[in-house]
């Protein structure tokens, strides 16, 4: 029914989808799996007519519907082709009823006004009936007059499904991680519903990180890795081992570090992470990983109050309150986030300010009037010298220390962030995705510096990342998070395949 031929997509010259050929059949559930950043969501965004695709130059290759060439440039074209998508984050309107949500922008009216179609009077009975039909078709039973806020997450998911299926002549339904926030019974209900939808002759693309679900509900499974379609399996050939191999690829990764002889004392103790706990040892390099949305970033972000969290943290036995950043900073705990623009750089400010900001009290030499830091002018000479030294050490490409950071490339921006961390000289450093979105040379350099900080300055480094190879290479220990819990800890020789399976919740926890 739907065929993709030689489909490719690049963002700013960086290829994210490479020559994808895929056939989707009516009445079948087609599973799509792959690690973070493998190109799944880009593929789905193309099919859904997401505006980011058109804005970044569109895609290349052909999309065929029933053998006819079609182009999808915006959302309404996608809808016209009968493609519907249920997003991971629900797009429902709070404060409105189930019917209103299902029939949004497709309301039935009693009569329609010529000049302004918006002014036509609604036909409540017809709309309620339609909503009821749509809900019954997927086996959901609820009062369509209910306000959406009163529903459970599961019911909301059904409303979202019903809204998409209420569209005229729907041919293809895309489900992006529909089960990620559901419990077991809810998931079961949803999966059987997906099966029913497919049995009505609708093609379904099902994206999930939970391999059991994939095995259970899909007829065909395709694996994406680094923007390339690696393999497609029919039901008879399904095997978790094959899936994992294809997702990671057979690569040999050497551990870069000799295992540490002795283990340090516990530096920080995290407990009540949904019933589990994690000890961070002094002087180690600890990797934390997990699939998207499994709670791995939440540890650092929760600690620094960026997101609400409910775990407990003790630093050298002292209880820390989450989000009390000035205490955390005073104890020498430092967080380097992956969202550079939002949380780790002053984009409009010069390089030197980004390097030394907030470290003045640890480096009195930056201040002219040391007796009164608050009202002291900065010692530009000392700062310039420091910034220049950092630029040379880290090989940062920039006009001068006075250039605004936004002029720098992503890799150099990240180096500026590292320079600030170096200036700060933390006791405990949390880094989130340190190598995301930067070039290969900067990647190596940044990893080297993280290790150098660990060895030279005895900084304990916690790296949160989805890049398994990198973690295996640089870390003493790797912790896998699954469904908000500490799932498994790997130490010493780590097997990538085992690690990958662990990401999907398989393995001996």
């Amino acid at each position, binding site marked *: 029914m739907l065929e993709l031929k030689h489909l490719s997509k690049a963002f700013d010259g960086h290829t994210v989808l490479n020559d994808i050929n895929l056939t989707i059949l009516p009445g079948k559930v087609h599973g799509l799996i792959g690690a973070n950043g493998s190109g799944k969501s880009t593929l789905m965004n193309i099919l859904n007519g997401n505006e980011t695709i058109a804005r970044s130059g569109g895609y290349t290759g052909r999309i065929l519907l029933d053998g006819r060439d079609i182009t999808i440039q915006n*959302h*309404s074209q996608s*809808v016209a082709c009968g493609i519907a998508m249920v997003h991971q984050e629900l*797009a*429902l*309107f*709070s*404060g*409105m009823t189930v019917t*209103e949500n299902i029939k*949004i*922008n497709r*309301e039935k*009216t009693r009569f329609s006004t010529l000049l*302004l*179609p*918006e*002014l*036509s*009077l*609604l036909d*409540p009975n017809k709309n309620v009936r339609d909503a009821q039909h749509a809900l019954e078709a997927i086996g959901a039973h609820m009062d369509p007059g209910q306000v959406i806020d009163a529903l459970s*997450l599961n019911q909301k998911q059904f409303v979202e499904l019903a809204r998409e299926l209420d569209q005229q002549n729907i041919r293809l339904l895309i489900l992006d991680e529909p089960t990620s926030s559901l419990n077991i019974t809810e998931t079961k209900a949803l999966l059987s519903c997906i099966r029913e939808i497919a049995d009505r002759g609708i093609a379904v693309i099902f994206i999930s990180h939970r391999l059991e679900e994939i095995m259970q509900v899909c007829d065909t499974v395709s694996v994406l890795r680094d923007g390339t379609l690696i393999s497609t399996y029919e039901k008879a050939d399904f095997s978790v081992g094959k899936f994992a191999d294809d997702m990671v690829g057979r690569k040999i990764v050497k551990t870069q570090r000799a295992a540490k002889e002795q283990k340090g004392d516990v530096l920080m103790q995290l407990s009540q992470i949904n019933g589990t706990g994690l000890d961070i040892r002094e002087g180690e390099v600890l990797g934390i990983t997990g699939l998207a949305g499994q709670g791995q970033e939440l540890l650092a972000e929760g600690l620094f109050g960026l997101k*609400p969290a409910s775990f407990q943290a003790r630093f050298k036995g002292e209880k820390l309150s989450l989000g009390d950043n000035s205490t955390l900073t005073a104890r020498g705990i430092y967080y380097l986030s992956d969202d550079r623009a939002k949380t780790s750089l002053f984009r409009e400010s010069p390089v030197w300010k980004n390097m030394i900001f907030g470290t003045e009290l640890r480096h009195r030499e930056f201040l002219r009037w040391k007796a009164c830091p608050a009202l002291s002018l900065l010692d530009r000479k000392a700062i310039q010298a420091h910034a220049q030294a950092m630029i040379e050490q880290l090989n940062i490409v920039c006009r001068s220390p006075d250039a605004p950071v936004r002029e720098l490339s992503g890799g150099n921006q990240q180096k500026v962030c590292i320079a600030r961390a170096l200036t700060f000289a933390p006791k405990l450093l949390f880094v989130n995705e340190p190598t995301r979105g930067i070039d290969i040379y900067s990647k190596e350099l940044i990893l080297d510096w993280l290790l150098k900080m660990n060895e030279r300055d005895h900084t304990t480094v916690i790296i949160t990342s989805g890049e398994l190879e990198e973690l295996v290479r640089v870390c003493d220990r790797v912790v896998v998070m699954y469904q908000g819990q500490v799932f498994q800890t790997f130490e010493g020789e780590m097997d990538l395949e085992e690690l990958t399976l662990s990401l999907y919740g398989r393995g001996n926890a």
Partner: protein
Amino acid sequence: MKFLKNNLVPIAVFLLCLLSFHYAGVSLSYLSSEVYTRFIRNTLFVLALILPVTCGMGINFAIVVGAICAQTAIVLAMDLNLSGLPILLFVVGVSIALSVLFGTLVAMLLNRARGTEMIVSIMIGQLSSVLYQFVFMVGYGTIFHPANEAILLDTGVGVRNMLDVAPLKQVFTSVLPFTLDGKVYSLLPLLIIGTFTLILIYLQKSKLGVLAKAVGSDLHNANLLGVNSNRIRTICIVISTIFAAMSQIITVSDFGTAMVYTGHLGIETYAAAAILVGGATIREAKLRNCFLGVVLFHTLFITSPMAGQNLFNNPSVGEYFRSFLAYGVIVIAIIMNLKKEKDLKLQNFKA
């Protein structure tokens, strides 16, 4: 208990009204006649605020633009020496046309100012108010030459501040007159208010009503689902402007004199205060908030100076108090709204 918590503002103001009425020492019939006058003059302004609140733009302080459109139409009608039914049709027709035009302009500006609509609408109101004054104070007699010289000042430049609109008033008083507290009132304004209330109810039950609610609930999602949110917001602002224009026509006809330069000033603050006193928030406003709010706010408005006189021997205290209430209730509404949103976010996190 929950009822009390959700209706804290109206209940508190109601108690204040009782106190103020008690100390003012006026008769109930006097109060009701005064409140009736203010009710017919202000209700449509308050109703004009509902749709912009529904579609998430907060309180539209730019309803002044609607009042200006109506005043322009009235000055033009006086210039053309109209009377009888033609004057009513002319004034209503021209002010609707102008409201559509200027309302669209206002909406274009507000659509560029997402997140700061309220303060931008204040500035739009101020700017259009002075531009309007400029046209009639300086433009008339120099660039525009009216057919009816009598509306000009003696210097020959600028329209008089006070224009007698007897022809318009006559149209109103001739329809269904009745007497209250010794004064003769017309039922026509009440009929107009009733008609526009029905129109508003219709709009709320139309496609526009649902889409406006969706845009107000989550603009991003609405766009994602193919709702043209800018268009919806524009329609809401235009309708709001038309409502305000109608209200100004009623006010001027009821008063009998058009205050060309000052008649439109301050209406937006009183309307905003009234709807918030009636229990609306900057995210949600219902019809009953409007009617309740108008009655409560204006009861306090009328009685507080007299209560101030009787209690403190100083009428201005009451005046100060009521303007404090008018502005303060807006601050309180914003604070409460933010608190509510924060709670909601926390709830979502827990769920």
